[in-house]
């Protein structure tokens, strides 16, 4: 049962460079629980794509299984989407990306989908530096199967069921850093101001851009005692700084006087500008990111924002040296060696 959003056109809706309004980036009406963090992330995706003036059909959105993995239905209704199988979205994106390197690949997953059943595929998509944006909507539980603890639940955290979780949390950003991810960020579904520029930077990054977004499950894991509930997260957040995504040729805004700033120029000429709150962080250094994250964690704080990026990384296509022209656009002429060549091969086998 799906509802199509009632169609009404507002003539004064603001439009972007392409002449599209935000509506052109929306999807079907969400069927998630009212207040679910995931819906805010969908909204941030809409906002980012709208602001970046990306043609919706140039985006392919893929996901695994879970409440989080349902969200691609709820944004970018003009993009092709693929709700695949549980934990295996990364491989599907890998294939899709190999077929056509010219689209933007947006993968959406949950903490169950990524940190449990999907751990292997996640690790290897990172390792290959697959050119995609990978968003984990991290609620520390399995929403769609009614709230079991996931592997990102903190030890001692209590979901609605009431039993404290017994195992150490897997920190997906930490794992991504360890495995060589070239863009790593963490955010919170409740912080759209931070999330939108992060998504934009991730889209512009060539390579694997990972955003771990803490996204409370209001139905099963938003109670006192849960370390992934709105209240707890809001109380324990700290940001690396404010991130500004500056498209090519636009001017960079300054930081507040007492902040240091760092700029990273992306391969397409756009710039990520970070006004740092934590001036010990060096976003171009993997070791620094690891150290800062642990430092905050040891103090019981959650460090959000841009953690690390390497704008000069080689993506999978670069590594395997595949043609610039998307493989799926190659014609029969380019693909089929023809009769004469086959004759030679036959001769070599006699």
């Amino acid at each position: 049962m799906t509802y199509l959003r009632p169609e009404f056109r507002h003539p004064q809706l603001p439009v972007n460079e392409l002449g599209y309004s935000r509506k052109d980036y929306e999807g079907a009406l969400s069927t998630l629980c009212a207040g679910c963090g995931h819906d805010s992330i969908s909204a941030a995706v809409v906002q980012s794509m709208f602001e970046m003036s990306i043609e919706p059909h140039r985006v392919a959105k893929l996901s695994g299984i879970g409440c989080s993995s349902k969200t691609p239905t709820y944004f970018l209704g003009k993009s092709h989407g693929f709700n695949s199988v549980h934990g295996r979205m990364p491989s599907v994106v890998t294939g899709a990306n190999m077929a056509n390197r010219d689209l933007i690949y947006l993968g959406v997953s949950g903490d169950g989908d990524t940190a449990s059943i999907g751990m292997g595929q996640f690790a290897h998509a990172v390792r290959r530096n697959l050119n995609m944006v990978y968003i984990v909507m991290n609620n520390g539980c399995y929403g769609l199967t009614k709230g079991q603890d996931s592997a990102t639940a903190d030890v001692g955290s209590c979901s609605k069921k009431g039993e404290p979780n017994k195992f150490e949390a897997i920190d997906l950003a930490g794992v991504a850093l360890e495995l060589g991810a070239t863009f790593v960020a963490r955010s919170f579904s409740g912080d759209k101001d931070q999330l939108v520029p992060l998504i934009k930077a991730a889209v512009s990054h060539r390579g694997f851009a990972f955003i771990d977004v803490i996204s409370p499950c209001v139905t099963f894991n938003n109670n006192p005692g849960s370390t992934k509930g709105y209240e707890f997260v809001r109380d324990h957040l700290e940001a690396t700084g404010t991130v500004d995504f500056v498209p090519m040729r636009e001017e960079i805004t300054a930081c507040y006087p007492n902040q240091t700033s760092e700029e990273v120029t992306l391969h397409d000429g756009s710039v990520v500008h970070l006004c740092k709150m934590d001036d010990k962080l060096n976003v171009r250094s993997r070791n620094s990111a690891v150290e800062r994250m642990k430092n905050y964690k040891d103090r019981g704080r959650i460090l959000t924002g841009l953690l690390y990026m390497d704008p000069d990384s080689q993506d999978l296509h670069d590594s395997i040296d595949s043609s610039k022209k998307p493989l799926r656009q190659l014609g029969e002429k380019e693909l089929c060696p023809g009769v004469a060549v086959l004759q030679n091969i036959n001769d070599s086998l006699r």
Partner: protein
Amino acid sequence: MSGIPARTPVVNDLVVKFANVNGTGSASANNLFAKALFRMGLSVSPKNIFPSNIQGLPTWYEVRVNDKGYLARREGVDIMVSVNPQSMAKDVREVKPGGYFIYDNSKPLDLRLMRDDIDFIGLPLTRICLEEYKDARQRQLFKNVIYVGAMAALINMDFSVLTDLIADQFKGKEKLIAPNVHALELGFQYAKSNFTCPLHVTVETRPMGDYILVEGNDACGLGAVYGGATMAGWYPITPSTSVVEAFEKYCKRMRIDPGTGKKNFAIVQAEDELAAMGMVIGANWNGARAFTATSGPGISLMSEFLGLAYFAEIPAVLIDVQRAGPSTGMPTRTQQSDVLACAYASHGDTKHVLVFPSTPKECFDMTAQSFDLAEQLQTPIIMLTDLDLGMNDNMSEPFEWDENRSYKRGKVFNAEQLENMSERFGRYLDVDGDGIPYRTYPGTHPTKGAFFTRGTSRDEYAVYTEDGEEYVANMERLLKKFETAKSYVPAPVITKANAKANASVGILHFGTSMHATLEAVDLLAGEGIAADTCRIRAFPFADEIVDFINSHEQVFVVEQNRDAQMRTLLVNECDLDPKRLNKVLNYNGMPITARFVADAVSAVLNKSSGSQRKKAAAAKA
């Protein structure tokens, strides 16, 4: 007193078996032997019998030679060339009475092994090598070439064919030609001067037919290049590994963009088989032709994804090079035991299109065709080959390609078609009544044709629904599509004992059971039994197959598995009475032989004619 039976000269009908240690470089010498016979215009069918291990365990290379076109394995070893003391006891036992056991007599033979019904021929291989070569590696390598030289003398091979082959083989490394030829000669001369050459089994040149000698896996890789595959996602597993390796080899030759030097293909070694299949699905979903190759364990692991591709209607090509059992279950032996696992892969109501090649040429053709089929039918196509076909050199008709052929990309709307479309695009609408809907590639059109891919919880417009009627309608359309598939897939090949009438015996077979079956027909003819054959080349089954069964009194299904899996599929999908289908099952991991098939058939016939006789007798009494 010798127990050797009376020998009469035999020309062009023998089995030679080499017993080696794996990892000692025997493979290339053994290949040389087989290829020389091939070039002499003979039919050869070499079989590698190797352990699941890299170095140091026994490995065998068995070559059957004849001039009747028979390509199946044959029981009975005429000449055993034993270079592995580890397996010697077993190897001696395997020689048929009147045969020869050739061994390295640098050390004395264990007398307990002696048999008096065969001849023992000692070649001082180690000693010759010690004398001739200094380097340890050379000593090991040339030992193998020397026994080939000796064999040339013993069975009267054309020596110039061997030297020509050496020259071909070392093109570019000419320095190596002379020492190899020298090694050949060492063996040849030793045999000539020490034994009465030739033996009673010899070979003789025949006019060479239009054949090639190649591994099925190589042909699959080449077929993928010709079929337009641009992407392979795979995970190594014996015996399928060389499919993607061959694809890579040929791509590197023929798919490098001449202008940029870039690759017009992408091969990704996945982290496991689930990922490999996911990649193939993703690439096909996005409009590229992509495939994977695997073996049994991979099929198990891919089955969730195969189900998704079936329900979401995504093309995919999967080559299953079958082997026996689980990872620790004879992974280096051949079987045809994934038929059911593939036909019904995944939970729920699923059916998959299968194709069954029998020769390298068919590996090539069917691989290329599978990409057409997958896109035309929008579903996974699974090609079932096996270790025997895939990893052994198989004689085959040469590869062919029709200049005028063009890829059949199936029903895909492009931007222009979408632009001009007035009605709403329905991804799963049965517009043409054949059960096959239209799809679009991501990124085609700014506002039209986008859809959301998922399993079955959706209507004809790909909109989410859990409505039971929509579900049923969709599932029935999938059945209709499967029916449509019948007319797309390769047709069966039928041979008839008598062109004008049906024989009373009909034998169904597929894949590598073909050679044994066709030869068995000749054996049976010798026993006065006429048999027709029907080679199944695809599932869903064409009507001709059912007709064949219905029009034969005694029907047999030859297969290389325990559970008669093809027979199950036939019975189930064609609503046949299983009693009509006699099982002929070989599943010890060795390629099936004609004798096995013929014996199985005549055993059944004798029994039933026996019981008829009994009945007749009873009626009389």
